[in-house]
């Protein structure tokens, strides 16, 4: 290498190092209260929640915001990558956003980059939603949208079954084959997980050529952390839990049964083979097309399934029941204060406004599902599911343990179990691996 090249390389390296140094200095400094007025920058994700929030922001900016001297600037990122982008901002200690979009399943992981919301009045919220956003006793997120699961089913098909004695006899025969003992068909309001399994077979052409649907159900079995939340309903429904006395509890009878249920349904073709890549949109498509009779699905799904414009084939035919087994995952989407924000005082004023029933009423009227039981009760004319959400959360709701690596745990369990869900990996092996990985995450 000649002298000139060496000098050029040296200059380049030095400049790069200086740039690296400059970058660290320009971000990462502690946040500040700021003037208490001005622009508050906020992130949300698109979809029903983000769209509803956009309307609340617009109303605030045109009303209360003028009195407060605050303008909220809402940025909608992509649904899949909002948390990734926020992670990158948090890792670089950025002050680019004042308020982050968070959730009860990642608030533990994000807590080092957030300020606790001390002094917030949480009395209007579902207690389980508030508890799910606390980490080490402090509240790090203001509950916004509450999510849980239901069994969404074709009421017309179930009613037809219950009214037809010949069909009932067929069902009893199939249930005997599937479960080992015959069962009479029941109203979905009181299904347990064995009913779920038997009905999956009855409504599948592979087990019942007379079935009105191609498949009984669709399993959300894609390697996705949100699908772990759905599967957890089955785990909890069998009496299982992630942890027992601080130790990982997946390698239990309940854990194995929960995985085996998915594997049995998949291998017997009581769900579409495409279930291995299915999540929320695929489940919606399966229900909307009329190819399946029922599915465990997110509460936000109901409105579009009963809308004639969006679901012409099944609108008016879909009903809601509790998740078979009587347990539903509950999490809250939330908004949190960036520790490195330079305008915390203004951001806190905006958050204080969001915590009011008035703001959440606007949110509900704009399509969101706020985590306030009284608001849901008052707005049930807008969405019949609201009343069910309230009672379901109160009666059947559970939250997974909140620890620093909760978010990673959902992802790891999906990775370890999704192969077994679709019969690609032996159940016992998958459960053992998942248990070991979960224990490592619990240990920190």
């Amino acid at each position, binding site marked *: 290498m000649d002298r000139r090249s060496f000098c050029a390389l040296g200059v*380049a*390296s030095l*400049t*790069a*190092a200086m*740039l*690296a140094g400059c*970058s660290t200095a320009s971000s990462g400094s502690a946040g500040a209260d700021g003037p208490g007025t001005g622009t508050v920058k906020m992130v949300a994700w698109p979809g029903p929640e983000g769209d509803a929030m956009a309307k609340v922001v617009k109303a605030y900016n045109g009303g209360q915001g003028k009195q407060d001297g605050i303008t909220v600037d809402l940025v909608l990122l992509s649904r899949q990558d909002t*948390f*990734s982008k926020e*992670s*990158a901002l*948090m*890792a670089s*200690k950025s002050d680019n956003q004042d308020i982050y979009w968070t959730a009860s399943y990642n608030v533990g*992981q*994000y807590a*080092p*980059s957030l300020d606790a919301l001390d002094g917030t009045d949480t009395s209007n919220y579902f207690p389980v939603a508030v508890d799910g956003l606390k980490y080490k006793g402090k509240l790090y997120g203001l509950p916004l949208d509450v999510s849980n699961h239901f069994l969404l089913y074709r009421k017309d098909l179930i009613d037809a079954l219950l009214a037809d004695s010949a069909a009932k006899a067929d069902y009893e025969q199939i249930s005997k084959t599937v479960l080992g003992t015959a069962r009479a068909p029941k109203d979905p309001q009181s299904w347990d997980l064995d009913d779920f399994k038997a009905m999956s077979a009855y409504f599948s052409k592979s087990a019942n050529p007379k079935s009105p649907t191609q498949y009984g159900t669709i399993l959300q*079995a*894609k*390697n*996705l*952390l949100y699908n772990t939340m759905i599967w957890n309903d089955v785990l909890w429904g069998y009496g299982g839990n992630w942890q027992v006395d601080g130790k990982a509890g997946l390698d239990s009878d309940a854990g194995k049964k929960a995985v085996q249920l998915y594997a049995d349904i998949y291998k017997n073709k009581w769900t*579409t*083979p*495409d279930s*291995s*890549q299915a999540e929320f*949109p*695929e489940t919606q*498509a*399966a229900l*909307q*097309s009329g*190819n399946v009779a029922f599915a465990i699905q997110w509460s936000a799904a109901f409105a579009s399934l009963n809308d004639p414009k969006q679901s012409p084939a099944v609108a008016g035919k879909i009903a809601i029941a509790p998740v078979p087994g009587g347990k539903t995952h509950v999490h809250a989407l939330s908004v949190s204060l960036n520790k490195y924000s330079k305008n915390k005082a203004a951001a806190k004023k905006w958050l204080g406004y969001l915590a009011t029933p008035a703001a959440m009423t606007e949110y509900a009227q704009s399509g969101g599902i706020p985590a306030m039981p009284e608001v849901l009760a008052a707005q049930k004319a807008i969405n019949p599911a609201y009343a069910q959400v309230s009672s379901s959360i109160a009666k059947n709701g559970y939250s997974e343990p909140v620890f*620093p*690596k909760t*978010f*990673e745990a959902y*992802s790891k369990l*999906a*990775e*370890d179990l*999704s*192969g*077994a*869900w*679709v*019969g*690609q*990996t032996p159940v016992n092996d998958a459960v053992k691996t998942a248990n070991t990985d979960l224990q490592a995450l619990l240990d920190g």
Partner: protein
Amino acid sequence: MTKGRPELAAANKKRPKRKNTAAAALLSLPLLAFALIFVAYPLVSGILTAFQAKTLLDPSAAFNGIDNFTALFKGPGFAKSAGFTVTYSAIVVTLEMILGFGLALLVNRKFPGKKAFFTMLLLPIMVAPALLGVMFRLLLNGDIGAVPALLHGMGMSVSLFAPDSVIPLLVVLDVLQWTPFTFLIIYAGLQSFPEELLEATAIDGAGYFRSLWSVVLPVLKPVLFAAFFLRAIDALRTFDVIYVLTAGGPGTSTTTLSIYIYKAAFESGDFGKAAAASLLVLVVLLPFVPFIVKRIASTGLEGKK
């Protein structure tokens, strides 16, 4: 005027050289700035992060030696994703090179509707990979997708996303999207192919395939290497389509290195480990670059004149 004054003659000779060097430096500044900001800085920053305990839970970024690297080999995830990535890349690149070369030969003649055909052929590479993933997710959906409906209408009941068919599906989608890319590069090479060589082989009585093997391929070698290199680098970085369609599952059966690194960073929140994985991949691939570049830089006509 400089007669008998050699030092002045030397000085006059140096002045134009200095002006050229200064002009070259000035014109290179924008590229240099771009390289420093978008290449050198991220590279240095990434290398530093690879040796730091930098996570969302502990953003202190303390130096932790080679802990991030050893963590990569504690479980089977990294090695498995590397194995899948290499195998997947080898298959798709081979198919794309063969099909791209065949298409280039086919299109390298006059025929009616050539322009329209050419345009249609290039459409897939104009679509962003993530968008293509979303499009295929809809098109191939068993309940509402056009492709399963068409197959069903033909009496075939196929589940394209079933675990046994998902990897072949991903290969097909990659070939569909990127064969036009290799085709374009090879076709450009054929356009500048010296015709007199083919005329000479024809005069010597060589047939089509003999000419192809003995003349066209050797001369096109730099172009083929360029297409192979660009496509291989991209295939090894595959993320978008696979992440949208399978998220690396079922289990980890379709997890590529990029998906592994993404999950390490944004789901586990472990930026140090993600940076270490990225650095390791860079170090492993770097030795191949001079070899490939040498092949690309050759004229292909050595020994043919």
